[in-house]
């Protein structure tokens, strides 16, 4: 029979790097107190424990309720690197949950995070940008980022940062610019994006193209895109080997060719052939964007003339799996066959 003896020894401390998590509802308030303690070790251990806990959305809610965000904000200005890295990690994990994002917006965490944009530690900045990216996925979060005037500094950072972080930045910018692109357009985002389109990293190219889509939604963006001669590069990217890049480039073209100048610029650079080849791509997004871009080009008489011979391709597309593609193909056919 086993001894029903409770050991006099405390359970061994399996993880000395983590603070002990109190039971039940005492866990988070206690960690909050530990976060505010003077002792560095306590704070670090509390942060590690918090990281684990924040994966559970209920804990996130409780944490925000008990005011952990204030202590975390204070810790962002700590001198110790480890503390800052861990704090940004905690904030990033919180931002992956909706409750966390809402809490960020209420407690002005975005501004506090922005003070770390120039932090010397790259891990810290990476977490920071991850947090921003997740916040930007929420429309009101993106609006919050725009409102706090961070866009010019983010755009500027695009030039300076390393590649991973550039990828994250581009994601954030893409989400924010779909909300409001005027500030970014004023801070030379188009030339920067143009450079990024020519980068060797596939990921960066596709994200840059996606950001360009967002940029060229407003009219000002379209004009700037045409002025900076981005359209030839986009046409060139249509022949890229990565499908995602092709699809995004087609999307950017789709928006840029809405204006007449854009249409003629695209026609001048022979955009129709690559777009036609994209119609057979496996990515539905690519097909969709290509169809739409060709529709735009068919508005111009030269384009229409050329595409009239290609109408059968569109008829084939009308039987596509995706409903959006079908609709787009129908519209394209209608536009091509329109007689004034």
């Amino acid at each position, binding site marked *: 029979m086993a001894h029903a003896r409770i050991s*006099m020894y405390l359970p061994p401390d399996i993880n000395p790097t983590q603070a002990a998590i109190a039971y039940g509802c005492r866990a988070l308030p206690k960690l909050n107190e530990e976060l505010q303690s003077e002792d560095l070790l306590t704070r670090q251990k509390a942060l590690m424990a918090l990281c684990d806990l924040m994966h559970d959305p209920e804990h996130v809610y409780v944490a925000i309720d008990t005011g952990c965000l204030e202590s975390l904000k204070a810790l962002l200005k700590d001198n110790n690197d480890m503390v800052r890295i861990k704090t940004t990690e905690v904030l990033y994990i919180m931002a992956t949950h909706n409750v966390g994002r809402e809490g960020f917006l209420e407690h002005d965490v975005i501004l506090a995070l922005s003070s770390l944009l120039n932090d010397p530690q790259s891990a810290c900045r990476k977490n920071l940008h991850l947090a921003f990216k997740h916040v930007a996925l929420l429309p009101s979060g993106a609006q919050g980022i725009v409102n706090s005037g961070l866009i010019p500094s983010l755009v500027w950072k695009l030039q300076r940062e390393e590649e991973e972080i550039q990828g994250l930045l581009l994601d954030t910018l893409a989400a924010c610019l779909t909300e409001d692109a005027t500030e970014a357009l004023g801070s030379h985002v188009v030339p920067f994006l143009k450079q990024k389109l020519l980068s060797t990293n596939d990921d960066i190219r596709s994200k840059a193209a996606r950001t360009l889509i967002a940029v060229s*939604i407003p009219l000002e963006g379209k004009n700037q895109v045409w002025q900076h001669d981005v359209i030839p590069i986009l046409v060139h990217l249509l022949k890229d080997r990565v499908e995602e890049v092709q699809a995004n480039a087609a999307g950017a073209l*789709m*928006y840029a060719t*809405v204006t007449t100048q854009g249409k003629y610029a695209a026609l001048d650079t022979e955009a129709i052939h690559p777009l036609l080849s994209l119609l057979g791509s496996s990515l*539905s997004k690519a097909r969709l964007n290509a169809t739409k871009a060709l529709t735009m080009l068919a*508005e111009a008489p030269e384009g229409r003339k050329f595409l009239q011979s290609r109408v059968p391709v569109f008829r084939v597309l009308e039987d596509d799996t995706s409903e959006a593609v079908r609709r787009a193909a129908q519209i394209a056919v209608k536009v091509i066959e329109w007689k004034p």
Partner: protein
Amino acid sequence: MRRQEPEVPLRTGLPAKTAGRNCQEVPPPGGTPGCRATAVGDAGWLGVPWGNPSVAPTSCPGNFLSRPPSFLPPLLASGNPCPWQYVHLSGSRDRLAPTCLKAGTHPKRSDLASGVASTLTDRTCSAMGTYTYTYTSRPRALPCQRRRYRDHLMQLAEEPVHHGNIMYDRRVVRGNTYALHTGPLPGQPDPIEIQRQQQAKRRALAKKRAQEQFRPRTPEPVEGRKHVDVQTEMYLEEIADRIIEVDVECQTDAFLDRPPTPLFIPAKTGKDVATQILEGELFDFDLEVKPMLEVLVGKTIEQSLLEVMEEEELANLRASQYAYEELRNVELAEVQRLAEQEKRHREEKERRKRQQWEVVYKHSETAQKVAARVFAQRYLADLLPSVFDSLRDGGYFYDPVERDIEIGFLPWLMNEVDKTMEYSMVGRTVLDMLIREVVEKRLAAYEQRDDQPPAGKPKDELGESGRMTEPPVGYELQEQSTAQPQRPLPGRDSLQRTPDDGRYMESVLAQETKLMEEAEYEQTKIRKTSGTEVLQPRGDFQP
């Protein structure tokens, strides 16, 4: 701070543990190494380490295990099996018990230790915080100090504790307490009191000595004699320095070991039932470990599931967001395209409308112009001949040469004619004057000569007629010079008659008039040309 918590359950847990175990385990005699470090010695002093838990709570809590069983159990064997669960309710009682036990089994214990233990319990009680009144020293039943048996090291815990009866305790004050002299007995003797006592003693001694000096003594013995103490009682007594001592011995048996309590074997009742337990039957590791494993693995899996779910959720969200974004982009592009198209079409329509309008406008304008032209033509067709006619009538069509002649030449001619005529008139006037003068002179002469019949009157008449004929002279010349046949004007007719008279005068005055003739000739020449011109149109006009 964490350590305080286990302290309380530890202390109350111990009794239960031991109760459950019922002295199955005999702790090794040397089993308290750590405690020995803090304790003074082992024999008989086991109580001390137990009594100093406050001193060594953090050190070797495990050693508690080895100590307790000898001290605690029987009292609590009857008590509740799991006292630590009722810590809050009956904790006081449980805690009381250990201290009592402690006190009971260590009769030689210093007050200090007991005091410490009691204060410890007090502290723990006050740490509980559930009592309104705290004791400095909790009331406890005092154990009796009488030892019947020799203390021995391996004292088993089932010795009944003999408590002393306070009624027979010398330490307990009986009777009234108001007149009692409470000396320095409670606590430390007061040093001041000690000093005072010593002083008093010294003073008494000194006084006594002083008094002895003054006491009348027997005078010194005379020389050769000696004082001797003599007994005067009836019976003599032997006086010796040495006190007669009588030793009386009484021998008891050497302290025997306390005989072990005879085992109480209750009468056997019931049936004997035996169970054979084979090895491995009672304890199955797998079974035992299962709950623990479940918890461990469960927690880990839970955490990891949470994280994986999180990731999945995020991935799903992202995927749906991408899909949504695609659709949105496409729709937005469509909207923009349609807007653009609309704008272009509208502009195109505007332009065409404007063009059409211009065309129509031009068309109507042209029609109007044509109509106007035609009408004007028609209107002016008649106008032209009449205009020409009226113009011609108005004299607007003229031969420039003719006109020029008329304007330039004829006036000049007339002027010349005038001049000539004036000249001739002037000449005639001069002539007349001359004649007059001459005549007057002649008259005068004649009158002088003969105051004669006035032959001057016919001369005057002649003169007047001469004057009248003068102008015609010019005209006559003109008539002479003009070779062309002309229709004679009535004026001319009159003029033609008079030259006859004039001819007469000329012949008279040939010299004076020669110059004038030449001049007149020239003038007439000029006038002739102008005159003919003047005459011709006049002739034309006359139907």
